[in-house]
């Protein structure tokens, strides 16, 4: 494979690369990194503005939502309005929002009356645990199945894998979640349930290994639901890129060298076909923090998706803006990482 890519790389690099061939490699990368960093910073600022505008335009009265059903006097409501800064003008609020964000203050949630950063902090790890595990498993499973079914496309394995993954991909997540929950937690017919119905742990189980095992048990169903719904993406992208590579002459060369079919696939076809999947993995990693609202709701998982949904209902602007910042920052960061990793994976990018 290395030979092939070098050839392509050399061809692509010649026009641009030849005149400045003598430049040291490091400075090129530094400049590349700086451009990307600046671009990321700009996109972050733009999303900040968009976020603020969007949420400020939301037609709702948070004070009414928060106090509804509780005996609240006029004076209390007026005080609350003042406390929440709702009596300030929009430019004033925007100024506070930008300065607070840039100095790292995410404000206080209206609904929970706690610092937004601590609310997000509390829910960050559960989301990372669930989405991280689910992403790792679905990437591995999806790529592995995609390679197999693409390599022998049209075979029974291909047909089963493609059919099953696309069917699961089109199933509504909450529906699949409910079905799995009923099946494995309550049990069906003679088969009793054996997995917990919701939450992240059994509060009665404390301490060390028991707790870890208990969390793992609680993780199974939400994670399974996520994986089943999501892995199809990787299967189809990987499958089609492998099929694209099938006719390539370098594979013929590899076979002519006498390599086994497995080795041709693993060492030559897969690395070349992997690039579109890498893009997708990073795009997906960016949205990991956003969590999966539906899965978190079905399984009562105490994550960030659930938190932003709750914030949206009031609407709890500081909390919404806080989660929005965290979500967009993670997407931007992952895109930045993808750009950097790409340079190492694909010599063509390096050469540009």
């Amino acid at each position, binding site marked *: 494979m290395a030979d092939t890519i070098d050839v392509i790389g050399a061809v692509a690099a010649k026009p641009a690369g030849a005149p400045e061939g003598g430049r040291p490699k490091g400075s090129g990368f530094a400049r590349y990194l700086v451009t990307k960093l600046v671009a990321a910073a700009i996109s972050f600022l733009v999303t900040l503005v968009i976020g603020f505008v969007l949420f400020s335009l939301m037609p709702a009265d948070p004070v009414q939502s928060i106090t509804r059903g509780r005996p609240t006097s*006029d004076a209390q*409501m007026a005080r609350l309005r003042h406390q929440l800064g709702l009596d300030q003008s929009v430019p004033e609020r925007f100024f506070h929002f930008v300065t607070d964000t840039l100095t790292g203050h995410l404000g206080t949630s209206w609904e929970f009356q706690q610092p937004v950063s601590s609310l997000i902090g509390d829910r960050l790890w559960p989301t990372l645990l669930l989405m991280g595990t689910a992403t790792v498993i679905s990437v591995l499973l999806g790529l592995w199945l995609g390679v197999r079914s693409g390599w022998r496309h049209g075979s029974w394995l291909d047909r089963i894998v493609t059919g099953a993954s696309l069917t699961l991909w089109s199933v509504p997540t909450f529906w699949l979640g409910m079905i799995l929950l009923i099946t494995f937690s309550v049990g069906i017919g003679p088969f009793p349930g054996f997995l917990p119905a919701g939450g992240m742990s059994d509060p009665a189980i404390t301490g060390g290994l028991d707790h870890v095992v208990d969390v793992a048990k609680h993780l199974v169903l939400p994670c399974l639901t996520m994986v089943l719904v999501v892995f199809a993406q990787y299967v189809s992208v990987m499958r089609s890129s492998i099929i694209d590579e099938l006719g390539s002459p370098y594979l013929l060369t590899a076979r002519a060298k006498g390599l086994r079919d497995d080795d041709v696939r693993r060492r030559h076809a897969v690395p070349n076909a992997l690039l579109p999947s890498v893009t997708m993995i990073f795009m997906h990693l960016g949205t990991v923090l956003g969590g999966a609202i539906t899965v978190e709701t079905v399984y*009562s998982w105490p994550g960030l998706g659930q938190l932003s949904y*709750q914030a949206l209902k009031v609407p709890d602007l500081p909390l919404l803006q806080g989660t929005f910042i965290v979500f967009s920052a993670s997407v931007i960061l992952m895109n930045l990482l993808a750009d950097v990793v790409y340079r190492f994976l694909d010599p063509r990018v390096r050469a540009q």
Partner: protein
Amino acid sequence: MTTSTPLRRTGRKAAALTASLLLGTAAGLVAAPAASADDGGGTLRMPITGIGIDSLNPFLAYFAGSLDVFSGIYPALDRVEQDGTVKPYLADSWTTSSDKLTWTFKIHKGLKWSDGKPITAEDAAWTFNLIMKNSTAATANGSLVGNFASVSAPDATTLVVKTKKPQATMLSVSIPVSGIPIVPKHIWESHVKDLKNYKNDSFPIVGYGPWTLTDYKPEQYVKFDANKDFLLGAPKYAHMIQQAFKNTDAAVAALRSGQLDYVSGLNPTQYQALRSQSGVKAFEQVGNRWNGIEVNGGARTRDGKKIGTGHPALGDVKVREALALAIDRATIVKRVRDGLAQVGASYLPPSLPQYAWQPSGSEKFGYDPAKADSVLDAAGYKKGSDGIRVDPKSKRKLEFRLGIHSDDDADAKVSTYLAGWFKEIGVKVDIQSMSSSKLNADLAKGDWDILMDSWSTGPDPTYLLGIQTCAALPDSKGEGGSTDSFFCDKDYDDLFLRQQSAFDDKQRADLLRRMQAILYKANENIMIYNANGLAAYRTDRVNGIVAGKADSTGAFPAQNSFDQYLDATPAKASSSSSGSGSGTVIGVSVTVVVVLAAGGVFLARRRSSSDDRE
């Protein structure tokens, strides 16, 4: 060639990682006990009430889940049973002065906070005074002490409350769940400065009540230990756990599989499904909530300035009367609530039988579309060529917006029925589904015609009646106010004032009924049904969680969570871990399957590579 090696190695590592994860999980299924670890005395498990807990700081929290927790861990002056009887709690007895302005409470001697310090009248006085003087402390319960002039504790067992005006509802000010929780002064004194940011999260929380809060994880769970020395009798369970469930279907699944003992707030479908489940008892309780529609009879500010975009025809009481006559409430009860509700009429729900009012035969707006038609005809609303009536004054068609809550399944169903029935009498409605926050914001601005609405109430209905007074209208700038329908009536307001100082229960009940009669005639709040509360518990785990006797329709009296958790007793049956045996079997078989599958894949790969090798 060189770049492929690391890739391959990571691939293998990742595969190994996945396999070990899977195996680890499977092993976990076998190793972990299916039932909760128990140290004797039992654990009562239920979901956290409502949409959760917003804060553990009792001066700030609004959510029902928080109020439920506070009722278990902080004391109150007295208790009010659902039927209105007042019972002692921290206060053994109380007296009022002849001018009804001074209340003297005798606080029970010898009680101790969970850290061993004595509970005195000073704790109660300090709590009330803080709420009266510190605006942050007034966040949640400020309005309850709005009429207090002063509170003092002349000695350890005497609490004196002076009010500005006589207050008949004094004994509802500090009660479990809906009243003010009393906190230990020696703990909270040092947090007054930073009250806004104080999370009250050093466990166990120092308090007094049937329970002591020992642990809390946001959005996950709250854990309690029983207080064995509780004044009103120790809880029968040693522990209580409330778990966060973000949807009732999952909570129902947890009840069915034995992970929870009690679930409330069921919908009719869940209730019917649980009725046929063995080992589970599903029960109805009389509803403490009304569901109905608000009609915008003319949104205005407190000083009479018209605001909003309400349809002018709805200002005519005849139009509103016709709407009330066009609703077939019995059909909605049957079709939407599966019969698990009462046909609505009175503004106060049937859970308060001492106050609830029923219209007499001649006053009643029953289902009578022919009468509705004739009422509109007589008032001059003629049908146009399209069958829609026209307002003779504004020349506008009787086309109304009907706002419904987008997250409420019942709203969607009821509004479809309403649209059909209204159409029959020549009234068109445009169903607009929106978020609760948008709906409430529109309501406050008067930008609505008809809204679907629902309210519940605890034992003291003052607040629910208060949102119908003229004082609840927005101020001259169109801001503030907590009005629910822009209803404003002088006679109603007079009665509201009189009931506040009506110290005789019978007299007060009579005033409340007259207020409801006024509301009923105005038809700005048209009641449709009172949904029965639906709940279920595991009979193999818990007894005594339901109090009282079922009425002729099979509905129990409305239950009070404070008493329910206190009275619940572990069931004798020892089959509490029925799931564990089969759980282990399944766990083992899953592990076996995983191991076999892994082995199979490994062998297959070996064989395929050896094929290639040959």
